[in-house]
């Protein structure tokens, strides 16, 4: 059992062109900003961004869009970010919009060894487009398939050396889902604490999901 703390250089080395990056946060809150610095420093381009939104123009997640690193976005809402909206309109970014609850479940599936879930959300709307309808006992459901990425960026409140995590308030949002939904999960924590300092019952994301923690 060795520490998962890693230097910024080690984390920067994770990123490569064409990857899918899964990012926690909601409307600029609870976003792993120091890990977004790492993506920017890596020079990685042609990324697919999987996150609830793309923040504001050149703020939080929006910095990846501003720097021209993003080719595709999968999100529930991009309207806050005027740059994303313009790049989508001009065809420079391809966007897939997913209802927020379905996006959360799809990430959860991707991190839980599940292939997808059946939901009513989006039935009778454009969210049905290209999707499979599954009947269960005569009832119609929309199949929302699992989503996963290459690297997941998580913002936590506290992290112990093996990656047990807590969150604070609404900064939790998508972060625990992102922690599961990527091949490699990297964490940025407001506070780094000792092993066993987070009581077992209070752990929100078990360390088993975490690969690396950004050292201060």
């Amino acid at each position, binding site marked *: 059992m060795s520490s998962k703390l890693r230097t910024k250089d080690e984390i920067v080395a994770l990123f490569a062109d064409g990857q899918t990056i899964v990012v926690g946060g*909601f*409307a*600029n*809150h*609870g976003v792993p900003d120091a890990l977004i610095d790492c993506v920017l420093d890596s020079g990685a381009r042609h990324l697919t961004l999987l996150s*609830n*939104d793309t923040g504001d123009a050149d703020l939080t997640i929006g910095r990846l869009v501003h720097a021209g690193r993003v080719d595709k976005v999968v*999100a*529930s*809402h*991009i*309207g*806050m970010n005027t740059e994303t*909206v313009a790049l989508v309109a001009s065809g420079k970014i391809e966007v897939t*919009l997913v*209802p*927020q*609850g*379905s*996006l*959360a*479940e799809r*990430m*959860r599936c991707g991190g839980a060894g599940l292939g997808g879930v059946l*939901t*009513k*959300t*989006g*039935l*009778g*709307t*454009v*969210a049905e487009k290209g999707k499979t309808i599954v009947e269960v006992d005569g009832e119609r459901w929309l199949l929302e398939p699992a989503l996963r990425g290459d690297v997941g960026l998580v913002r936590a*409140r506290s992290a112990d050396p093996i990656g047990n995590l807590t*969150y*604070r*308030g*609404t*900064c*939790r*949002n*998508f*972060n*625990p*889902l992102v922690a599961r939904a990527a091949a490699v999960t990297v964490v940025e924590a407001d506070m780094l604490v000792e092993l066993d300092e987070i009581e077992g019952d209070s752990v*929100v994301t078990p360390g088993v999901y975490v690969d690396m923690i950004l050292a201060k």
Partner: protein
Amino acid sequence: MDIRHRMAKRAAAYFAAGDIVNLGIGVPSLCNNYAPPGVMFHTENGLIGVGPLAEGLQRVESFSNANGMRFVPMPGASVFDSAESFAIVRSGRLAATVLGGLQVSEKGDLANWARPGKMVGMGGAMDLVNGARKVIVTMELTAKGAPKILKACTYPLTGAACVDHIVTEQCVIDVTPEGLVLREVLDGVTPEEIQRQVEPTLVVADDLAIMAA
């Protein structure tokens, strides 16, 4: 009372103590000023127990609503991730949601997230209209003189047959299996005047009431 607050106050009259309610942005967000005691507010980014807007040291990043506004959590607040948040929404645990509307059809279809060619995202709206036990739309009756209550929506739908109540600045309309029922009108406004501003034929309630101004 200005028309925005009038609509918010009327929408909030659908809430009862013990209800958990989700409010959309704009007019719906004003409903918390008029809710009866004991109503708790859900924000889809992961909390039940949203209190008043925060000031000074209370303004911390960790308590922000879906609109990015900082708030004070109320006693008994609970925090959860986005998957749990929408498990609560879809499973019918919210007594009501109040949302703005671009168009509502006579079957209760709602369009409120996009105009054709301008789709920036549905956020949580599709889950909310699918899951909340009562879907209340607050909107002005017309847009630049054109009706927003239509036989069929022309904008991309948020949900099909999902709206229960439409609260406008002039009237309250319920979506029922018998069609759109006019429940309340502002004092001095006639049902005929309302009818002229909506596309489908309204049923006037036997007990048509006066809407508080």
